[in-house]
């Protein structure tokens, strides 16, 4: 039950009638690292947004054994660390410290506790010296790390990321992959980067047109070239 994620028959239709998700179900155990792949428009981002209650569709979601409802929303959000694709959307404080401190401050921790959490989070992403820097001026790779730190400071059980390696040069990308491999949280990463998937994520879920079309071991799935071609992955 711990650090797990389960989705049952999740469907979602946009107000304009577009059906974005169609009966998606899967379960992720604690500690697993899973890739969510699919062509653009498959519904990956839509799915992720359900996990922290930003969107509400039909079906049920359990995070660490607790069902996602209106009442448990706050609690679930604390457990799910959601990192969005564009770091600029998530860094809205003047300094790195304030951005990383947002979560703990919201949760009501004392000053010392907040400081401790910020330090720990920045250490986890290897950016301790950046604490007083201005987020806005950092490189994309640095911003992505800070964005990760902003959710790590909340001590999430599960890490959910949308296109973590998008827009990164090879060096920053390598740094990020190494960083992710160090983190202990359960992970669900939506990505186009198949090399990342092969290296880091043993399980892959393929989404296309809102449906779950495959769910299995990365090695097997990514060798099936027909499957990949059919769903716009290669």
């Amino acid at each position, binding site marked *: 039950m711990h650090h797990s994620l389960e989705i049952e028959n999740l469907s979602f239709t946009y107000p304009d009638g577009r059906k974005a998700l169609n009966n998606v179900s899967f379960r992720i155990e604690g500690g697993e690292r899973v890739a969510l792949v699919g062509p653009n428009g498959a519904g990956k981002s839509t799915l992720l*947004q359900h996990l922290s209650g930003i969107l509400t569709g039909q079906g049920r979601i359990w995070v660490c054994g607790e069902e996602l409802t209106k009442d448990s929303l*706050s*609690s*679930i*959000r*604390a457990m799910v660390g959601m990192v969005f694709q564009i770091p600029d959307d998530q860094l*809205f404080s003047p300094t790195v410290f304030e951005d990383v401190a947002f979560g703990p*401050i*919201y949760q009501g921790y004392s000053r010392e506790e907040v400081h401790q959490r910020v330090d720990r989070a920045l250490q986890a992403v290897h950016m301790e010296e950046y604490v007083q820097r201005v987020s*806005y001026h950092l490189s994309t790779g640095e911003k992505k790390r800070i964005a990760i730190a902003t959710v790590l400071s909340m001590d999430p059980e599960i890490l959910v990321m949308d296109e973590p390696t998008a827009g990164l040069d090879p060096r920053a990308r390598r740094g990020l992959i190494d960083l992710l491999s160090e983190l202990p949280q359960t992970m669900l990463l939506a990505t186009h980067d198949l090399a990342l998937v092969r290296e880091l994520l043993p399980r892959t879920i393929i989404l296309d047109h809102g449906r779950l079309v495959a769910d299995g071991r990365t090695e097997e799935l990514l060798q099936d070239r027909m499957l990949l071609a059919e769903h716009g992955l290669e």
Partner: protein
Amino acid sequence: MDARIKLPLTLAFILTCSLTPFGSWWVYILLLALVNSAAILSELGLYFLHKRALLALPFVLAAFPLIFTIPGNPLFTVGPGWFTLTASQQGLARFASITAKSWISLQVAILLAATTTFPDLLLGLRALHLPRLLVAVIGLMWRYLFVMVDEAARLLRARASRSGARDLPGKKVGGQLVWRARVTGGMAGNLFLRSFERSERIYAAMTARGYDGEVRSLPHPPLAQRDWLVLGIGLLVLLFLLLIG
């Protein structure tokens, strides 16, 4: 209907509506009929029209006191003994008139907005001799409006997903009010900064296409005779309504 006709007609309509004296119920009804039939004719539908028209409701409160402050034939009294308010017939009439006028004007404005594409609206504004620079600014603003609204929405989402707390005892969740306001300000600053830098990129793209600061546009087709006729008839109808009011 050409926007260059629609816009002045709409303005004239609202003007007529506002000029109509308080209590001219028949004129109100006629104006209302005009708007609603136009809505039906333009395939907009009454449902849509009135759904949007509900927006004006809250502001009606501003005129509410009039019921009690305009002197006239008393209707009823409310209030505890030491403090009474007397409603007057004239006050109620005034309040109802203002509400009616506002509601009707709102409908015609909705009609205009819903049946006119934005470029056409700008065209109408230009025809009313709005300065070119202002029209250009509004045009660019429209183009990037949804982009910026999207960014604002993503900022809100990012904040929401970090606004969670487990049920731990002794913790005041949500932070201080001042802190929340300042964080919101930071989001606004983020938005503004990004838009500033975006505008620099846009400027670069514009100059790459030969922009030199002068706002030029293609000449617009002249209005057909039929358009002028429609405008003329429309104005006459409104004038008539005004006179009988």
